[in-house]
């Protein structure tokens, strides 16, 4: 197969270039580490640079392919390869952009965070491999590849959470993450087997075709669809498979928390979007007629419950990192609106709103966790009180954190305002008022706990015991870049949203 990119005819696998760049970068990291195999002897700067440049390159290539229209209706249409196992279209490229940008920020921040640690090369390699899995998840187009990609991103994540292997919290979190993940994976793979049993196919489009022809397997299919849905709830940290998230995010090194809560979540969502909209549209009644299994309503229930559980639990936390972990669960609920309100007349808009929210979220949430990483570097403690008066010593970082938090809450200081507005508009278009009401109530509540951090940083008096000695450059740079991106996404939102809407419309 030959496709055209910006005027050049190239082989179709070239459209996977962003993923290949990530693979190459991870192999390069391994190569560098083999030169000096003793732990801690490779140059942290070189490793971080390779990882940052690699993921940045993936981000730029994906962005370029997205801009020139590869895989989209206006140029070639979706590029399908390996017998339809992988597909590159606007949707996949959009999510690779998200994954690439988050990975680059995390890698940049990790340079300072990992200074002096052993096993740096392993860390960067795992990050890159997980990112590879996530970017492949965006392209996965069959149940088998979907599962493999998902595991490719999950297994490095378990190891990353346990990166401080002498730290009890880190190891315990990783183990819990792994056990919950194992259970979830088994649920997912069992669901896949049932769907396969009902349809006899693994490729998404083929599943959809076969299901219509085989009404007698509706019961098996129904059980399968629900189990697959919950399998993805694990990856996106949605209720009821969210239990790992607060533990893992809190125990993990903060850059890893940022990575998991932003990139991993986005990857879980893109796979869920693609699977449910290309394999199960008729099952859910989206093509008209009675739904065999009303997964749209199931997603609506999960969305509302996820919003409430995440935000209400966040409101009562004492530790900032754990609060952010729960808020991340709450945001999964917001993003679920993309599937929950999909029956709206303008479904491209609804799904596009979710995608845009994930894009903005990638910057503001990553930035917030990286600020926590900064705080951990300073050793100032983890509770809200420990942040008291921090602005007197680190005004720039505190200003950036304020931008992140207010944008997460949906105030018009960053792109989070418009993406939330679009989500609200999406619920209005679909007529799902309950979702809209839940979004409003939870956003209002979230303002409460986000502003607690802001209040602590800017208005409380410092207790005077903490002296900040160093201002780590790369961590600062990552935080500031994320803050600038968050703010710029407010005016630039309208520039990017059409590509999200087009990419989303491509699925229907």
């Amino acid at each position, binding site marked *: 197969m030959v496709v055209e990119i910006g005027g050049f005819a190239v082989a179709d696998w070239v459209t996977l270039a962003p993923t290949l760049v990530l693979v190459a970068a991870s192999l390069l990291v391994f190569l560098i580490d083999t030169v000096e195999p003793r732990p801690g002897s490779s140059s942290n700067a070189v490793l971080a640079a390779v990882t940052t440049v690699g993921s940045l390159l993936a981000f730029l290539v994906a962005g370029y392919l997205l801009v020139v229209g590869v895989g989209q209706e206006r140029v070639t249409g979706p590029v399908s390869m390996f017998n339809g196992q992988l597909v590159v279209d606007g949707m996949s490229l959009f999510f690779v952009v998200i994954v690439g940008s988050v990975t680059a920020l995390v890698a940049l921040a990790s340079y300072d965070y990992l200074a002096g640690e052993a096993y740096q090369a392993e860390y960067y390699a795992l990050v890159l491999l997980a990112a590879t899995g996530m970017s492949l998840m965006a392209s996965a187009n069959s149940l088998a590849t979907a599962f493999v990609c998902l595991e490719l991103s999950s297994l490095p994540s378990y190891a990353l959470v346990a990166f401080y292997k002498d730290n009890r919290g880190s190891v315990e979190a990783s183990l819990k993450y792994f056990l919950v993940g194992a259970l979830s994976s088994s649920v997912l793979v069992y669901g896949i087997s049932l769907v396969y049993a009902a349809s006899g196919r693994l490729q998404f489009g083929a599943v959809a075709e076969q299901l219509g022809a085989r009404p007698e397997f509706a019961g098996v299919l*129904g059980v399968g669809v629900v189990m697959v849905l919950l399998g993805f709830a694990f990856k996106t940290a949605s209720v009821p498979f969210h239990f790992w998230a607060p533990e893992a995010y809190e125990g993990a090194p903060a850059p890893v928390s940022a990575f998991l809560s932003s990139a991993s979540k986005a990857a879980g969502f893109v796979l869920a979007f693609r699977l449910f909209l290309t394999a199960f549209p008729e099952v859910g009644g989206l093509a008209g007629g009675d739904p065999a299994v009303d997964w749209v309503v199931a997603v609506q229930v999960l969305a509302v419950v996820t919003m409430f559980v995440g935000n209400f639990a966040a409101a009562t*936390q004492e530790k900032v990192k754990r609060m952010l972990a729960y808020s991340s669960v709450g945001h999964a609920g917001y993003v679920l609106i993309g599937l929950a309100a999909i029956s709206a007349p303008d479904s491209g808009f609804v799904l596009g709103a979710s995608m845009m929210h994930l894009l903005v979220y990638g910057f503001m949430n990553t930035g917030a966790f990286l600020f926590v990483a900064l705080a951990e570097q300073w050793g100032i403690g983890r509770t809200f009180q420990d942040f008291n008066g921090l602005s007197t010593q680190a005004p720039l970082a505190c200003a950036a954190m304020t931008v992140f938090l207010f944008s997460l809450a949906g105030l018009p200081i960053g792109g989070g305002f418009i993406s939330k507005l679009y989500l609200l508009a999406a619920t209005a278009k679909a007529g799902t008022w309950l979702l809209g009401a839940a979004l409003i109530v939870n956003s209002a509540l979230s303002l409460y706990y986000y502003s607690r951090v802001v209040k602590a940083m800017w208005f409380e008096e410092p207790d005077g015991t903490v002296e900040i000695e160093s201002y780590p450059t790369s961590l600062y740079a990552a935080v500031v870049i994320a803050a600038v991106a968050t703010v710029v996404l407010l005016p630039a939102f309208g520039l990017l949203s059409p590509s999200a809407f087009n990419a989303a419309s491509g699925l229907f």
Partner: protein
Amino acid sequence: MAGVYDFVPAVALLPFLAFVVSLFAGEYMPKRGAEAGIIATAGSLALSVWTLLTVAGITGPATSFNENLYTWVAGGEGAVTLNFGILVDPLSALMLVIVSLIAFLVHVFSLGYMNDEGETGLPRYYAGLGLFSASMLAFVFSNNLLMAFMFFELVGLCSYLLIGFWFREAAPPSAAKKAFLVTRFGDYFFLIGVVGVFATFGTGLFAPVEGAETLASFPELAEEALAGSAEEAGVNTFGYDPGTWFTILGLLVLGGVVGKSAQFPLHTWLPDAMEGPTPVSALIHAATMVAAGVYLVARMYGFYALSPTALAVIALIGGFTALFAATMGVVKQELKQVLAYSTISQYGYMMLALGAGGYTAAVFHLTTHAVFKALLFLGAGSVIIAMHHEENMWTMGGLRDRMPVTYYTFLSGSLALAGIVPFAGFWSKDEVLFEALIHGLGSEGAIGTLLLVGYAMGLVAVFFTAFYTFRMVFLTFHGEPRTDTARDPEPVRWNVKGPLTVLGIGAATVGFINMVPVAEVTGREIDYLHKWLAHGDISVTTTEHYGELLHTFAGVDPAELGPVAPGAVSLVLALAGVGAAWKLYNVPDPEEHTDKLGGAKTVLMHNYYLDEFQVWLATGVTVPLARAADKFDQGVVDGVVNGISSVSLFGGSRFRRIQSGVVTNYATLMTLSLVLLLVVFVVAGGVV
């Protein structure tokens, strides 16, 4: 080719530039920023005159201009689009000239009043004047209601800044605050009206914008809705009968007009506003702030002409204010106070004319009044300089021989104000009353009666106007000097005398642009202003069109009556007023004859206790209401909010407890929820 209309924005931009320059560089200029203002307003004046000539067809073929220049909110399908645009037609062209002329003269006069008196803070003063002029000029050429509203508010802000110029004293800040709050009260209704107009018509254009696709104006749409059905015209009247709804909208906008033009009952801010520097008073009274209200009614007259109720309200407010303010002017002791009440009264006349269908008469009176009121204020300013900032007329007297230029120009203005032939005020006031009379006689039903009531009040006010005007002239300039200062006043310079002379000549002659009675008697067509406003490219803003609207929708028609007899009546009344003042006050040593009024004088001195009433409204009604609202807020609203937050936090702590930290619990919960979902969506869903 660049025509004059490309430069119209500069009419407002030049003074705005002067504002910026004075504000930031005024300290370093020899006249502390006055230069910038004078040059800018001179430029505005030149451009305005050029515009006027072009509209008249003398310097160019295009005699009108109406275009949107900048879209600042682009509405999509079904949403309104908000624009900045410029409308130049005979009305706005005329008004631009008036405003820029007065602004220019006021700037020059300020050299004498402020610079020569050694005031400090002058850059702030000239910056304020510049912004004031810029806002008013932009308001005048606004082509839609929202833009007009924005500049209307800016005008209000500038008046606040300038009235409170001497902010270290006690009275000016208080007066500024009062002006701001009282006009804001009216503007509140105006804002609702603006929103209402946009919600009803989807546009705020005063006149249609021609182009690839003609954009209709809201008065036109209202007309269509009244003539046909509201749906056809695409007008949403929110379930009301279109006539009723348009009246409501008109009256809401009128709220802003009543506040700005100082009409009853929101006139109370204007006399207090005398605390500002006198040139500012001249600007406020003649050309900017107060004129803005009446100008707005004239600007959207095509809308008011559709509603007989709104017209009757305007006419009654106008007539009543004219009389009411004139009576209070009779007892005032300070020069500027008398002038303040005369302003309120004169704007009442304009409102009366507008309400009675005398659009031309109102614009005419607006024009002449701008000239003679600016003159009177500047003259008063000259007297105040001479008297070392003493304003009480009882300390003056005999200034006639000591400052002849001021005296004769002031006399010219006073004759105009009193309405003595052939000075400007005579022609315009006479026409206002004439229009009120013939439309009152010619219209059927209630509106005819109401217009006649308005006319009667206006007619009585003529006597009072002439009386207080000449009481002021005689007390100030005639008789024997009553104090040492009056015996030896401070001389004034060219920068005071120059503007006075220009305006003095104007006050005597500007009435000649529209001598209707003379035209009637001689049969010669010299009623230029009538012709000026009757025709135009934009047919919906011509008096011809307004006449049709008044006839068709409001039932307001003129009766057949010559202008000479009514003119004679008002002239006789005016002369009687002058005569009474002559008898009582043109004596070497006048006494306070108003003391003989007894209790009535006390009432008049206290302005009918309206200020007290408004203060009582604030403290007696609003404060208890606010307290009750506060109680409600503290108790019920906060209670609910606090309740919700406790419930949320309690719920949060419960949710938190689910996260026990034990993995087996998690696995159990996950499995249970899987089972639950399977039961609900698969088993109960009837799939199996």
